[in-house]
């Protein structure tokens, strides 16, 4: 395996098992003694850290530059408010009232360009943080965690993806959905593992993910989780699109039991260790194609 290969685990619908697959892939690579980093990009609710004990070795706050208005220089012309596309500036001219609503600010800087009176300076606002843990000698867990009430996790996700001190194999646990946080999580990946479930919702979101990845010219394959009976519609779709099914994980109460206790199924259920080593082998084959 190429040293710094990047594998993203995504899948559109929430709750299909992205973190299950990402944490167990990380575990089997780690157990082989290989250098590996798990990056939890689900910054709205990062939870990969629940499965590993590690020492915090790096922490950084992710900042956004937001405007600060010097009211002694402001003439209440309202130009900054007009330039703002996000309703982040409120101004009542006759009351000489002006206020920045920091939660709405995207940090674009248009207001400072608009101001002809140098009344706008910038200050830092914390929008998220990145924490990195040493899980094992050659295994790192990096976690993107956004602040509550922030409009987008993208900057936090991007910062986490940049915080890779070693050229390790990367397993990227992407957030659900197919919008910007997903795009930024998979944009540098060599291969994307799409985790889905055999339900109409799973299929619908899987199709959206695949359409998005096609546009990004990415390589990808599918893991179907919680399989009790085959979903004909899903299988037909995957066949028609010529998409590889990398693994199928059964609907198994033992998985839920181990997972709910914060355990890894590749560690505690021997049958599943084979599933994940097999999955890893297939992914490597696909990447080397």
């Amino acid at each position: 395996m190429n040293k710094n290969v990047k594998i993203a685990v995504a899948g559109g619908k929430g709750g299909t098992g992205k973190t299950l697959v990402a944490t167990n892939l990380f575990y089997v690579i780690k157990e082989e003694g290989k250098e590996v980093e798990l990056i939890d990009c689900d910054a709205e609710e990062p939870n990969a850290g629940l499965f590993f004990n590690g020492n915090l070795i790096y922490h950084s706050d992710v900042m956004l530059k937001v405007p600060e208005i010097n009211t002694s220089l402001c003439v209440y012309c309202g130009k900054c408010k007009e330039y703002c596309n996000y309703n982040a500036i409120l101004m009542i001219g006759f009351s000489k009232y002006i206020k920045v609503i920091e939660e709405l600010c995207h940090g674009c800087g248009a207001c400072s360009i608009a101001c002809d009176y140098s009344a706008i300076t910038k200050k830092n606002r914390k929008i998220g943080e990145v924490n990195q843990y040493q899980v094992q000698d050659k295994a790192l867990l990096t976690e993107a965690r956004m602040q509550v009430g922030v409009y987008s996790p993208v900057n936090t996700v991007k910062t986490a993806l940049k915080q890779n001190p070693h050229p390790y194999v990367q397993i990227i646990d992407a957030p659900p959905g197919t919008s910007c946080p997903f795009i930024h999580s998979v944009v540098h990946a060599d291969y994307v593992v799409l985790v889905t479930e055999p339900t109409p919702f799973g299929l619908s979101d899987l199709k959206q993910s695949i359409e998005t990845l096609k546009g990004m010219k990415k390589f990808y394959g599918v893991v179907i989780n919680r399989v009790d009976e085959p979903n004909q519609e899903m299988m037909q779709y995957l066949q028609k699109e010529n998409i590889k099914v990398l693994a199928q994980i059964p609907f198994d109460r033992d998985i839920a039991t181990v997972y709910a206790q914060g355990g890894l199924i590749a560690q505690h259920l021997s049958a599943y260790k084979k599933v994940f080593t097999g999955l890893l082998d297939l992914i490597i084959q696909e990447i080397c194609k």
Partner: protein
Amino acid sequence: MKVAITSTGNTLESDVDQRFGRCTYFVIYDTESKSVEYIPNPNKQISEGAGPASVQILAERGVNKIVSGDFGLKVKPLLDSLKVQMIVIKHTQKTVSEIIESLDH
């Protein structure tokens, strides 16, 4: 004094809209002249910041009091700092005219 009532329509018989920033209409009632003005809310469908943008509309018109179903977390401190009173009408369905009547008494 000018009072804004969030409304589901542009009649006095319309119900109070339970949402502030994304209400359908703002009814502005002047307690002195007894005049009523209906303003369609341009922020009803915007993606974000509907609350503060609606505060902007009402504060520019010199509204001192707002009647609505609820006020969001971004809106409350803004209205406090602008010294605009918030009146919450929750769990009871009232029409605009019923509100106006209680304001006059």
